[in-house]
């Protein structure tokens, strides 16, 4: 119930295309869903996050779509660029904090954007 399942493991997209990464969760108590971006040799960095009271959140070329009934959420990268090539992690947790607020991460998706 604590798992967050992420797919695909790897993704190759042409420059200008749309990258889509999907995540699914089981624990209905999760109520915070962030995405982290990690470049080689660096630590993950928060990219965008969503709460379940909205179905979509957009920041620039990055959009989170959230489907509460299906317990799924996805990251869409529009007009993908070579600079977007990185590993992306979805995560989930419960609010408020304490140990239940610790982030549970998916296993990651390695995105390569070809020029």
């Amino acid at each position, binding site marked *: 119930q604590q798992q967050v399942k992420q797919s695909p493991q790897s993704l190759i997209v042409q420059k200008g295309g749309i990258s889509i990464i999907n995540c699914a969760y089981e624990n209905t108590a999760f109520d915070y869903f962030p995405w982290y971006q990690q470049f080689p040799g660096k630590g993950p960095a928060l990219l965008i996050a969503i709460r379940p009271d909205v179905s979509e959140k957009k920041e620039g070329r990055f959009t989170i779509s959230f489907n509460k009934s299906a317990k799924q959420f996805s990251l869409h990268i529009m007009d993908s660029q070579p600079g977007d090539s990185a590993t992306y992690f979805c*995560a989930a*947790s419960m609010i408020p904090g304490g140990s239940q607020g*610790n982030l549970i991460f998916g296993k990651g998706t390695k995105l390569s954007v070809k020029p």
Partner: protein
Amino acid sequence: DAGITQSPRYKITETGRQVTLMCHQTWSHSYMFWYRQDLGHGLRLIYYSAAADITDKGEVPDGYVVSRSKTENFPLTLESATRSQTSVYFCASSDRGGPYGYTFGSGTRLTVV
């Protein structure tokens, strides 16, 4: 410099040796975390700390020890390193409980031979 720093960046050690990975943050964040990153497993929580002198186990704590005598430091010790502990270790901090504002360090790549 402000931020969260990990040292060393790279470490090779022998099986059975004790090794300590250091983590220092300059924001006085209450919460600090240690994760390990392995291919096929993503990020897994080893230990976390809600404040100085308060620590708790995460998903994969066996073989690791932590301490937090000062708010800014959160060292991770492998008491007797094993090859299965070869990994990239990330420290993170947060200024509030729960998931908000996790800032990760750049990681320590540890190889146990």
